[in-house]
């Protein structure tokens, strides 16, 4: 196993910059998820690490070796592809044996390693089948086996679960996580599904538009998003982002909505706003941090329920505030109907404040 370091990595295609100055360190044995919307540069980054495409500038190190110009086969990596990329003309056995044959291992050692990998992944009975005779989940497992059999320094996984149906995806998610724990493997895992990243990874690197937005543990990314993009991308349903007007008078700092209502900020939050020069502040709140009442509450903001979506154990209510859609979760027992007047209170301890111009999080110190 080895650590991976990206330093100022850049990849351009003609005028288009796919990966823009990305730097991050993946420690030995860490599971890192590269996450972001499609076209954000996450798969390109992975392909750069794999050596499948040449880098424009910057450095990639695997272990203590700079591998910028090293051929993929000499980087000591294994990769699992979104469509599995199993060799269709080879049996499962031969698919697993191929990377070992390429390394010119003795025949009996290849046989031993293939059978061991098949046993670990519980697919000994599939060894003589061709890929097209396997189900999606089985193919996925073979692809994983082909990576595993090599005992590489780093595993690269490119959306390995996105071709599976929802139920199988959840099951494979825990299998891959288990696989990581057992092997203490270094894994770089690309996904567009933030839930996969949050549930599986030790650290997540959120990317957008070719830039690395935030690189931290899932809890940190969830609780302390550095900007509005990360805040809205991580968490489901998305964090509500409400554009407001900040004003200070008599030592009080107040945020005012389009409809005329206002919130007085706590001293801690007020300091955040005062430290910045902007008057345009965006308030971010996750659905669970907003309290909803069906009767007037002093200091609460009046609004109207727009849609009501019961999901079973939680009911989501949406309302419009200051031109933004606000998500609120309520117990399914609470009687709320569309168009009904509601009153909302924001939890000052758990609210996020962003600069409306730069979209960056406002900090108190």
């Amino acid at each position, binding site marked *: 196993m080895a650590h991976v370091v990206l330093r*100022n990595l*850049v990849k*351009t295609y*003609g*005028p*288009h*910059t796919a990966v*823009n*100055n990305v730097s991050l360190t993946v420690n030995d044995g860490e599971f890192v998820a590269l996450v972001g919307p499609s076209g954000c540069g996450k798969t390109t980054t992975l392909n750069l690490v794999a050596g499948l495409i040449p880098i424009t*500038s*910057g450095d990639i190190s695997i272990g203590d070796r700079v591998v910028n110009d090293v051929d993929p086969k000499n980087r000591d990596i294994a990769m699992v592809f979104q469509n599995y990329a199993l060799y269709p003309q080879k049996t499962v056995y031969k698919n697993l044996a191929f990377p070992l044959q390429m390394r010119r291992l003795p025949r009996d050692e290849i046989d031993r390693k293939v059978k061991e990998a098949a046993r670990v992944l519980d697919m000994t009975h599939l060894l003589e089948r061709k890929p097209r005779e396997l189900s999606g989940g089985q193919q996925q497992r073979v692809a994983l086996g082909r990576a595993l059999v090599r005992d590489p320094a780093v595993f690269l996984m490119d959306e390995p679960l996105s071709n599976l149906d929802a139920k199988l995806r959840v099951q494979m998610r825990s299998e891959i996580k288990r696989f990581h724990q057992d092997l203490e493997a270094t894994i770089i895992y690309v996904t567009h599904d933030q839930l996969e990243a949050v549930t599986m990874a030790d650290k997540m690197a959120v990317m957008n538009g070719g830039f690395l937005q935030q690189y931290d543990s899932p809890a940190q990314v969830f609780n302390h998003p550095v900007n509005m993009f990360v805040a809205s991308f991580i968490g489901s349903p998305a964090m509500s982002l409400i554009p407001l007007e900040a004003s200070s008078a008599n030592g009080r700092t107040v945020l005012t909505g389009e409809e005329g209502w206002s919130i007085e900020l706590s001293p801690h939050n007020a300091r955040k706003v005062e430290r910045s020069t902007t008057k345009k502040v965006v308030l971010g709140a996750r659905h669970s941090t907003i309290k909803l009442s069906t009767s007037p509450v002093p200091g609460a903001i009046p609004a109207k329920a727009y849609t009501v979506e019961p999901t079973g154990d939680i009911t989501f209510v949406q309302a419009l505030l200051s031109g933004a859609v606000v998500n609120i979760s309520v117990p399914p027992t609470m009687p709320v109907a569309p168009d009904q007047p509601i009153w909302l209170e924001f939890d000052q301890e758990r609210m996020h404040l962003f600069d409306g111009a730069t979209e960056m999080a406002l900090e108190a110190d």
Partner: protein
Amino acid sequence: MTLATRLADAPLRENSKEPGVLQRAWINRADYLYVLPSIVVMLIVIAYPIYYTIELSFFTTPPSLQLRDKIFVGLDNYSLILTSDVFWRVTANTFIWTIVSTFAAFVLGLGTALALNHEFVGRGVLRAILIIPWVISAVAASYIWKWIYHSNFGVIGAVLVSLGITDRPPNFIDSVSTVLPSLIVVNVWREFPFAMIMLMAGLQTVPDQLLRAARVDGANAWQSFWHVTFPHLQGVSTVTILLLAVSNFNSFIIPWIMTGGGPSNASHIWITHIYELAFGRQRWGIASAYSVLLFIIMMTLGYFYVRALSGAERKDRG
């Protein structure tokens, strides 16, 4: 250049050019190895002859002289050609030959492709039989049809006589008025299977759902052909017609073997005429000038050919 300035440059580069062509060619030099064998062979066998033909078209080569002792005559060859009656006769023949053959082969190919486009017993066998004329050699086909058209013992003549349609067997390929149509029948016999194969493949790309939707919407067979099937066949049809037209324009074997261009030039088309000028009468200069004129016509056709092909390519990328 430091990294910082490089990054600062990045947005500006959006309007500027990509890395220089030579630079990219050098970066990708290994890729050229894959195409190199093809290119080398092409250059030897294609580029040189084209150059040589153009050069020769400005010279005259009297049969008494060696080819290398050619005499420069400027554009004389061209003016000679354009003012000769034979040229216009041959050009008219070429266009009749190309247009009628292409149209007939396409229509018959489309008809068979449509008729074969549903399951029935013996469909595979029938399709295989219909393709055979396209596979066998044009030389064999020419002799078979020459025998069928034979003015004394030809089978068609015999049938016509025994049915009482004519008194004696007609001279299909020995008469100025019937020779070209008779040869076109042979050419179409050999070519319609090609159109059939192309269009059968094209028909497979027509989505079943769309045909079913058309039927639900109340379209009859003709309407669903016209509104659903035919639009899907447009790309294939263009390519097929162009390929047919090009190969008809370049036809040689059938007229050459069956009539040698006769009687009295009635079945000479461009290529047979050029061949006779060059190899029959040793008039290389005139033949080359003919070839250059042919080039020009082909390049015009070629322009549409490439446009149609790249259009097809764009479509399946999109």
